[in-house]
């Protein structure tokens, strides 16, 4: 087929152009540029609270915007909203499907969402009139599991799925506004930019993609990982993206330079990264691993500066509160821990 061969050649040529253009702006490396700044020194965080109550593996957690409440999802079939300071359970929401893989807290604090092997994203109203927490919407259209979800507002949410797509939903009508297709493998994780204009997705095709929400377009694709990307997050200024992979590394990609600037790895770490969160200044990267630990990295100097050891099973999720005062880890050991 003449056209097929032409298209294949053009694709190869464009890929070479991108590689060359990235090399052209590579006048230094982040590690060289950061060589002169003071090292962070050892970071030692202590467990301040243990949130007990789930009866099975915890798969996801998300801080509320007030830096006090957080929501967790477990395959015991419950979503629990916790007051992380008192350790009280504010809400314990029974789920229709116990095969939950993700949860999210709306910035307003009014809604939480979750989903998993039911292929749906269920939205719950925490502030219903009679005080009962009920399902407000079930967003159904994905043909694969729901791996992650994040609210833009009380009326819009973005989901990522094992069907290789991400979707922007209108919560009020329960319909898909935009389908973001392009990944060639299960989408595992997503994060929304601080200005809410973009989101990034990490997938089992080993790439991360930057999407323009309103233009409904993929702007950039980042490669380099040698296995599935399980976790993704924005650097706090929105100009860089951090990924965590089954290849045992995390990577920092700068959006404006359109390339990888750092890899966070150590020969002694041979298990996958499950989750990650930067500290509020961006200087620290906290990443959860399959070996039950959290490693803390200096994002600029690429050195490991601390370890959080305290869980008796895989750390499946991690989050830093918006005021930066605490890090929360969730584990297959059924506990959440608050560290600072």
């Amino acid at each position, binding site marked *: 087929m003449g056209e097929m061969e032409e*298209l294949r050649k053009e694709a190869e040529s464009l890929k070479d152009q991108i590689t060359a253009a990235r090399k052209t702006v590579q006048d230094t490396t982040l590690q060289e540029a950061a060589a002169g700044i003071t090292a962070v020194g050892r970071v030692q965080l202590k467990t*301040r609270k243990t949130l007990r109550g789930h009866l099975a593996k915890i798969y996801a957690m998300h801080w509320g915007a007030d830096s006090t409440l957080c929501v967790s999802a477990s395959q015991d079939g419950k979503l629990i909203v916790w007051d992380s300071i008192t350790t009280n359970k504010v809400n314990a929401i029974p789920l229709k499907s116990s095969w939950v893989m993700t949860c999210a807290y709306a910035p307003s604090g009014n809604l939480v969402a979750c989903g998993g092997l039911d292929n749906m994203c269920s939205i719950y109203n925490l502030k219903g009139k009679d005080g009962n927490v009920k399902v407000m919407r079930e967003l159904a259209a994905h043909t694969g599991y729901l791996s992650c979800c994040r609210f833009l507002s009380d009326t819009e949410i973005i989901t990522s799925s094992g069907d290789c797509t991400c979707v922007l939903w209108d919560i009020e009508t329960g319909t898909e506004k935009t389908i973001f297709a392009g990944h060639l493998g299960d989408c595992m994780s997503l994060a929304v930019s601080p200005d809410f204009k973009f989101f990034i997705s990490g997938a089992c095709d080993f790439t991360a993609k930057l999407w323009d929400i309103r233009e409904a377009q*993929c702007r950039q694709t980042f490669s380099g990982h040698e296995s599935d990307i399980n976790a993704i997050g924005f650097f706090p200024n929105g100009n860089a993206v951090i990924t965590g992979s089954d290849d045992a590394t995390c990577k920092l990609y700068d959006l404006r330079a359109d390339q990888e600037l750092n890899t966070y790895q150590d020969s002694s770490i041979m298990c996958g990264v499950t989750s990650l969160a930067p500290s509020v200044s961006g200087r620290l990267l906290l990443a959860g691993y399959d070996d039950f630990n959290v490693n803390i990295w200096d994002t600029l100097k690429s050195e490991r500066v601390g370890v959080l050891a305290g869980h008796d099973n895989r750390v499946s999720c991690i989050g830093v509160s918006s005021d*930066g005062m605490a890090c929360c880890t969730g584990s297959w050991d059924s506990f959440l821990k*608050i560290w600072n």
Partner: protein
Amino acid sequence: MSSKMHNASRIAHARRTVQQLRIEASIERIKVSKASSDLMRYCGEHAKNDPLLMGIAASENPFKDKKPCTVL
């Protein structure tokens, strides 16, 4: 699917791939030195407001259990 339909969908997929690569190839890129210095500056400016980095005084840590006081 007939082999004609199969070819048509392979071509459609290849066209989409090329279209996407054109978009990605056309973006403006800044130098790594500038990207690096901007990241470093952000970290530097916000370091003092990063409790996990700077440490938190016990009296200001809402998560630290306060020790009970005895009234003498």
